[in-house]
C-alpha cells in the first residue's frame, strides 16, 4: 500500500497532528541499559498503601459495575470538600464536578465542549504536551504564547492580550507548570483575571500540581473574584497522590460547561473506573499526610538539584512547584534535541528536550527530580562531566 493510500484512510485532523516528541525520546532511551532517567513526568512513589487497600477492598465488596456518569457521589462530595477546604472555592458535587479518566480526559472533553471549528485557544507555553493537539482535534486553533526564563516562565496579561483576536474563546493556563515548574501568585493571576473579564474569555486552569507547591500557597484561579463562572479547573490524583496509573482526574466548572462536558464524557467513556474512584475517595479522606510527606521529599530534592545545577554551571530558575527543573542549555550552542540526545548517548542520562513543550522551550531541557537522591547525585555528576566539553 502506498503512503498516499494510507493517508486517505486517516482524517486530516489526525494527519496534521505530530506524534509527541516525548515518544521519540522514550523509544531511544528505552533501547539502552543503565540509564538514569530524569525524563519521567510522574512521582517515584508507589501509591500509598491505604489507597491501594481501599481499592482492593472495593473490589472484594463487589463494586465492579459502572458508576454514575459523573462519578460516585461520595467522591464528588469529597472533591467538593477538598476544593473548599484547600482552596476556598465552593463547587456543588451534583452539578459542578465531573470525575474523569485522568486530567488528560478532562482537557479533551473541556476543549470539545467549548470549541467550534476555527475558534482560537491561547496556550501558554512551554506547556504540557497535550494541550495544543487536543485543541486542534476539537477543531480549534491553538495560539501559542511563549514565556521564557527571564520572567521565570511566568506569563503576563499583556503577553496574552497581544494574542487575542475576535476568534479567541479561551486560554489554557497551567501552574505549577509542566515542564518549567514555574507557578503564579495571586497578584499575577489577578491581572489575567481582569483580562479574561474584559475580553469575555474562558480560562482553563490545569492545577494538577497544586499540592506540589513549595514556597508559596497555591491559589486556585476560580477563587479569584468573578472567575468561578468562567473557569474550568482541571485536576486529578496522578501527581499529588502518586496515582498516575489509576487514570483518575476531575473537573470543577460552572454548571452549563460541566453538563456539556458530561455529555461528551458519558458517550465516549461512560464513567471513570469504579475501583479507582474508591481508591481516590480514600486518598481524599486519609491521604493528606502522605501528600505532605511526598511533597517535603520533592522540596528537598528540588533544593539539592537546583543548587547543584548552579554549581556545575547550568543556568536554572528555581521552580516553585511540580517536580521539574528546566535549565537553560543555550550556552552549549546545541539545540535542546541535540543536547538531550548527546547526553543520553555519552552519559546515559535521559532528559526531555525543551522544544517538545512548545514556544519558549527551545534552549532548555526538562529534568524531573522525582527520582531517588542517589540518582540525582549521580546525574549531577554525569551532567557536570558532560558540560565540561563546551
Amino acid at each position, binding site marked *: 500500500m502506498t503512503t498516499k493510500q494510507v493517508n486517505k484512510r486517516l482524517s486530516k485532523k489526525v494527519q496534521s497532528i505530530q506524534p*509527541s516528541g*516525548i515518544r521519540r*525520546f*522514550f523509544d531511544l*532511551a*528505552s533501547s539502552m541499559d543503565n*540509564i538514569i*532517567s530524569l*525524563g*519521567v*513526568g*510522574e512521582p*517515584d512513589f*508507589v501509591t500509598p498503601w491505604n489507597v491501594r487497600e481501599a481499592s482492593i477492598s472495593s473490589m472484594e465488596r463487589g463494586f465492579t459495575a459502572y458508576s454514575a456518569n459523573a462519578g460516585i457521589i461520595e467522591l464528588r462530595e469529597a472533591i467538593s470538600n477538598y476544593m473548599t477546604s484547600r482552596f476556598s472555592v465552593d463547587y456543588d458535587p451534583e452539578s459542578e464536578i465531573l470525575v474523569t479518566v485522568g486530567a488528560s480526559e478532562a482537557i479533551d472533553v473541556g476543549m470539545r465542549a467549548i470549541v467550534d471549528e476555527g475558534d482560537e485557544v491561547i496556550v501558554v507555553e512551554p506547556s*504540557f*504536551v*497535550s494541550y495544543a493537539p487536543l485543541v486542534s482535534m476539537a477543531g480549534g486553533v491553538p495560539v501559542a504564547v511563549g514565556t521564557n526564563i527571564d520572567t521565570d516562565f511566568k506569563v503576563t496579561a499583556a503577553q496574552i492580550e497581544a494574542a487575542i483576536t475576535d476568534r479567541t474563546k479561551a486560554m489554557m493556563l497551567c501552574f505549577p507548570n*509542566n515542564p518549567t515548574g514555574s507557578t503564579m501568585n495571586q497578584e499575577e493571576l489577578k491581572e489575567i483575571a481582569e483580562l479574561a473579564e474584559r475580553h469575555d474569555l474562558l480560562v482553563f486552569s490545569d492545577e494538577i500540581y497544586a499540592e506540589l507547591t513549595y514556597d508559596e500557597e497555591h491559589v486556585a484561579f476560580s477563587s479569584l473574584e468573578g472567575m468561578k463562572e468562567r473557569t474550568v479547573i482541571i485536576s486529578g490524583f496522578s501527581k499529588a497522590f502518586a496515582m*498516575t496509573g489509576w487514570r483518575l482526574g476531575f473537573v470543577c466548572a460552572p454548571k452549563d460547561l460541566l453538563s456539556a462536558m458530561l455529555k461528551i464524557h458519558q458517550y465516549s467513556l461512560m464513567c471513570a473506573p469504579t475501583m479507582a474512584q474508591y481508591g481516590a475517595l480514600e486518598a481524599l479522606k486519609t491521604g493528606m499526610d502522605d501528600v505532605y510527606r511526598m511533597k*517535603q521529599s520533592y522540596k*528537598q*530534592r528540588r*533544593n*539539592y538539584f537546583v*543548587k*547543584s545545577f548552579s554549581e556545575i554551571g547550568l543556568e536554572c530558575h528555581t521552580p516553585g512547584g511540580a517536580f521539574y527543573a528546566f535549565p537553560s542549555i543555550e550556552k552549549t550552542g546545541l539545540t535542546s534535541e541535540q543536547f538531550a540526545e548527546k547526553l543520553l548517548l555519552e552519559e546515559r542520562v*535521559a532528559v*526531555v528536550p525543551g522544544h517538545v513543550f512548545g514556544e519558549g522551550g527551545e534552549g532548555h531541557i526538562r529534568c524531573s527530580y522525582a*527520582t531517588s*537522591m542517589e540518582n540525582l*547525585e549521580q546525574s549531577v555528576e554525569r551532567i557536570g562531566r558532560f558540560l565540561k566539553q563546551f
Partner: protein
Amino acid sequence: MESKAIDILHIIEENGRVSIPTLAKMVDASEEEVKGLLKKLEDDHIILSYSAVIDWSKVDQNEGVTAMIDVKVTPQRGVGFDQVAERIYRFPEVKALYLMSGAYDLSVVIEGKTMSEIARFVSEKLSTVDSVLSTTTHFQLKKYKHDGVVFGEGEEDRRIVVAP
C-alpha cells in the same frame, strides 16, 4: 526546634549516609550551618547514633535469634520502675527495653546467637533480678518490617524511562 533541624532529622532517619554537602543543599543551608546543627543535635542527645537496618538472615553464619520477653516486676518505692529497668538495660544482650501498660510491665528485646544462649540469659540473669516476678519469652520467627523498613526485595521503580 528550627525547621531545618527537623528536616535534617527526617532525612537522616531515612538515610544516615547522606553527605554534608548534599544535606546542606537539600535543606537550603550552608555546610557550616548543617555541621553546627548536627553537632547540637548530637550534643543534646536527640541524634543518638547513626545505624543501618540490616537483614542478617541474608548474611551467612550470621543468623541470630531475637526474643521478646514480657516481664512482670514489683515497682519500688520512690523510683517506680526506673531502677529495675536500669538493672536490666545495662546487660549488653538487651537491645531494647520498654515500659508497657497492660498485662505485664516491661518488654525486653534480646538478641543472641542461639536459643539456648537466650534461655540461659533469661533463667540466669533476668529472672534473678530482685523485683522480677515472672517472664514470658517469645521468639521471633521472621522479620517482615523493622523500624519502618520492609524486609525483602522492596518496591522497584516500575515507571517507563520517559513519560509526559
